[in-house]
């Protein structure tokens, strides 16, 4: 990695267009991650690369904006009583190990199959994981919405009940978000998987949040808030590792952070206005749309690896730009749902406050 840092001119020239783009995507990404615990990276990293930033520098700079953003978001949401710091740290530490292992696998694949092989691996991981987890999360949110039981407390899944019932002496830890003791042996693989996914597709939360909800039994609000602690722990370690090799472009990180801190504050505020299933809804919607975006890229990489017939240059270009446009759409739609929920929640609150005043006068 050090060689790459030295041979490639890592730091691009920044113009106002680039900075505005990073700031805005940072804002929308921050808004989404303040709400669901993660997101934004899948647009930011390819976005930076399209500016001419080398891939590793884009990943490193994205990570270096992620951990301070997650920290600010976690502090904000802790004020609302939504963060389980202990669970976040326990999962975060095992996620760190997952990141290292995931990066190791990535390097191996890159060595054996080149860039196209590594891209294909990333895209297939995206498609498979998002298809399984995303459709499950979305289906669950949709069922809650349709059943009209959106006001009721979230039910703990059967698997979470089972996990909570297992007693392995010497490994049991109490977590406030679960209101139960669980064996740390269950959290380690979940954290590890979160980290591996973060190293592969840059959004570990797509595993972290659903696993806290469905496997451990945490409420959605607490799971998404606790994910910010995991992202902080993971991001801090990862950023340091990349910074050791001089791969962080701090200007890019701080400009994205500039926008994302506006967003994350707003996203965190948004969680106080919505019913818990909305977290799942936003997350599921984004996951499923991103899935389509990445699926479009699979034939491009397969053709580069000669696994299928050669695609024409124009076909590849149009697949690439459609894929990127769909990703931006996914993020924008997520942001729209959140902003709409905040707006509706605030309007309802104002109306009830007005009613209270009128009744008070009468």
């Amino acid at each position, binding site marked *: 990695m050090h060689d790459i840092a030295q041979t490639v001119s890592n730091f691009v020239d920044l113009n106002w267009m680039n900075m505005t783009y990073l700031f805005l995507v940072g804002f929308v990404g921050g808004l989404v991650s303040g709400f669901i615990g993660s997101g934004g990276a899948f647009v930011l990293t390819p976005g930076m690369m399209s500016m001419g930033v080398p891939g590793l520098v884009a990943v490193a700079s994205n990570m270096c904006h992620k951990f301070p953003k997650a920290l600010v978001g976690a502090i904000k949401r802790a004020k609302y009583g939504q963060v389980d710091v202990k669970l976040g740290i326990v999962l975060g530490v095992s996620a760190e190990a997952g990141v290292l292992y995931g990066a190791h696998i990535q390097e191996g694949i890159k060595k054996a199959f080149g860039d196209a092989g590594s891209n294909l691996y990333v895209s297939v991981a995206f498609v498979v994981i998002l298809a399984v987890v995303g459709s499950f999360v979305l289906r669950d949110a949709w069922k809650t919405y349709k059943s009209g039981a959106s006001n009721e407390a979230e039910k703990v899944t059967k698997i979470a009940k089972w996990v909570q019932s297992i007693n392995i002496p010497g490994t049991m830890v109490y977590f406030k978000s679960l209101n139960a003791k669980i064996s740390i042996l269950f959290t380690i693989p979940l954290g590890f998987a979160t980290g591996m996914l973060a190293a592969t597709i840059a959004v570990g939360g797509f595993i972290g949040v659903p696993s806290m909800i469905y496997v451990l039994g945490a409420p959605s609000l607490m799971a998404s808030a606790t994910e910010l602690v995991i992202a902080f722990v993971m991001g801090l370690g990862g950023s340091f590792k990349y910074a050791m090799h001089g791969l*962080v472009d701090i200007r890019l990180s701080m400009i994205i952070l500039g926008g994302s801190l506006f967003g994350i*504050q707003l996203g965190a505020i948004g969680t106080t206005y919505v019913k818990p299933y909305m977290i799942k809804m936003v997350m599921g919607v984004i996951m499923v749309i991103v899935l389509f975006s990445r699926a479009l890229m699979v034939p491009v990489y397969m053709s580069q690896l000669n696994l299928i017939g050669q695609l024409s240059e124009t076909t590849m270009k149009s697949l690439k730009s459609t894929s990127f446009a769909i990703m931006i759409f996914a993020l924008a739609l997520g942001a729209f749902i959140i902003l709409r929920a905040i707006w509706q929640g*605030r309007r309802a609150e104002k109306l009830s406050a007005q009613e209270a005043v009128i009744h008070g006068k009468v």
Partner: protein
Amino acid sequence: MGSNYGKKKPIGRMIIMGIISIALYTALLTNQAIINNYVGRGGIYAFLPIVMAFIFSFVHGNFTGDFWAVIGVEAARKKKEVK
């Protein structure tokens, strides 16, 4: 606004943090070459971007938090019942 009566808006702190935040960003962008030179060295200089990230997140994070409070976008008053 009805949502924040009884609470003073943090206008003063927002202005101070806003000014420091702008100063930090100006310093960063006007000294790009020097900063990139040090950050790009890696090794022990890895602490540099990490420390910068913490400083920016503290200052700018406080500013953005106060910004939304000052324009009246705040958390719902009704406490969400979280287990």
